[in-house]
C-alpha cells in the first residue's frame, strides 16, 4: 500500500514547481529582461492598478461634492 500522502501530493498545490521553473526560463528567453526589470514591471502593474482606481473614485467624489 503506497503512502497516501505521496499518492495525493505528486507535487504541491496549485503551481507545479517544475512547471514554473520551465515557464520562468521561457519568459526569460522570450523577453530577455533581467529579473530585477521583471520585478519592477510586474510590481508596477500590481501597484498602479489599485492606485488608479483610488484616484478615479477620489475624483468622482470631488466632482459629486462640487455638484
Amino acid at each position, binding site marked *: 500500500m503506497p503512502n497516501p500522502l505521496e499518492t495525493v501530493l505528486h*507535487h*504541491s*498545490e496549485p503551481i507545479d*514547481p517544475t512547471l514554473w521553473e*520551465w515557464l520562468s526560463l521561457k519568459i526569460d528567453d522570450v523577453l530577455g529582461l533581467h529579473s*530585477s526589470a521583471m520585478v519592477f514591471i*510586474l510590481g508596477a502593474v500590481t501597484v498602479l*492598478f489599485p492606485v488608479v*482606481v483610488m484616484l478615479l473614485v477620489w475624483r*468622482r467624489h470631488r466632482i459629486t461634492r462640487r455638484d
Partner: protein
Amino acid sequence: MFYGWYIIAALFFATFLSIGARQGFGVFVKTWEEDWAVSTAAISFAAAIGTLVNGFSQPVFGWLTDKFGGRPVLLASFFVTGLATAGVATISSVLGLMVLYGFIISFSSGGIGFQTTGVIVARWFEKKRGVAMAVLVSGGSVGGLVFVPFLSYLLIEVGWQAAWIITGLIALLIGIPLLLIVVKSKPDDIGLTIDGVDPNSEEGLHGSADAVGPKFVDKWFDALSSRPIWQLSFGYFVCGITTTSIGVHFVRWANSEDITTGTAALAFGLLSGINAAGVLVVGLLSDRFQRKNLLGGVYLVRGLAFLTLIFLPGDIALWAFAVIGGMSWLATVPLTASLTADVYGVRNLGMLFGLANMSHAFGGALAVFLFGWAFTNWGSYNVPFVVGAITLLAAGVVCLSISEKTNSVRFNRISQSNELDSGSVTAGAS
C-alpha cells in the same frame, strides 16, 4: 459611470492578489525544501491542510457576510491575511508553515472568496450580474498570470522572506486603503440603487430593488428544502473534482504519455488564456440567456474535453483538452453565483454560495487523492478520466434540469406587494 463598476475594479484587485498569492505558494517549495531540509510531501501537507481549512471557512464567511455585509468581512479578512502573509517571513519550519499558512492564512483568505465578493457584486448588480461576476472571477486568472511570475522574480532578487513581506505589505498598504475607499456593501450605503437606476423613475419605483423571486428565503436553511441549491451544489462539487484534479495531475498525465513538461506547460498556459476570455464571454451571454443552459453547456463541454484525454492520442489530446477545456474552465463560477442569487435572493447568498464553494473544495480534495491513487496503482489515468467525464455529463444534465424560468427572479418576479409580474423585466432572455 455607475459606481458599481469601481467596486468591481476594487474586488478584481482583491481577487487578483488573494488568488495570485495562493497560487504562488508552489514557487517557494524548492527553496523551503533546501532551507529547512524537508521533503516536498511535508510542505505539501501544509498546503493540503490549507485547502481543506479554506473550504471549511467559506460558509463561515458567507454567513458573516450575510449578517454584517461584505465590506467589514472583506476588510477584516484582508487585514489578517496581509499581516499573516508578511509573518510567513519569520517561519523556519514546516510546523510554522502549517500553523500560519495551513490554518491562519487559509482560513482568513476565505473571507476574500467569492461568497463575500460575489455577495457584494450581487447587491450592486442585477441586470448585468453575469458580466460583473465574470470580471470579478477573471481577477483570479490575471492574478495567476501576473502575480505568480512577480513572486518568482522577487524570490530570485530579494529572497523568499522579503517576497512574503512585500506581498503582505501590498495587501496592507494598498489593498486595505483601496477597499476602505471604494467598496460599499450595498448601493443604498451611498444613496444609490441596484444597477444604478434612478430611484424616482418608473423602474426605480417598481423595479429591481423591490423584486422578490418565488424562492427567496428569509433563512438560509429554508433553501435546503428546495431543489436548485442541491442541483447547483452538485454541479459545483463536480467542478471541484474536475478542475482541481487536472490542476494537480495534468503534467503527470502528459509525462505518462511521453509529452515533455515544457509542452504540457505550454498547453496549460493556452488553457488559462482561453479560460480568461471564456469567462468574460459566458458572463456576457449569461445576462441575455438562461444561465442554467449555459451552466449545463459548460459542464458538457468540459466532459467532452475529458473524453479527448481518453480517446485521442496523447499529443493530440493535450491540445484538444487545452482548447475545449479552456472554454469551460472557470466559467462555472459567475454562472453558479449569479443563479444562486437569482433563485434565492441576496439576503442569504453568502451562506448558500459558501456551502457550494465548500462542496467545490471537498470535491477537489477527494479527486486529487483518487486520481493519484488510481495512477499509482494502475499506472494510467484512464479510469479517473472516465469517471470525470461521467460526473461532468451528470452535472450537465442536472444543471440543465434546473427550472430557472419558474424559480429565478429574472423571469418570475413578485413585487414587495406580492403582485405577480411574471417575466416583465428581463424580456428577451430565452
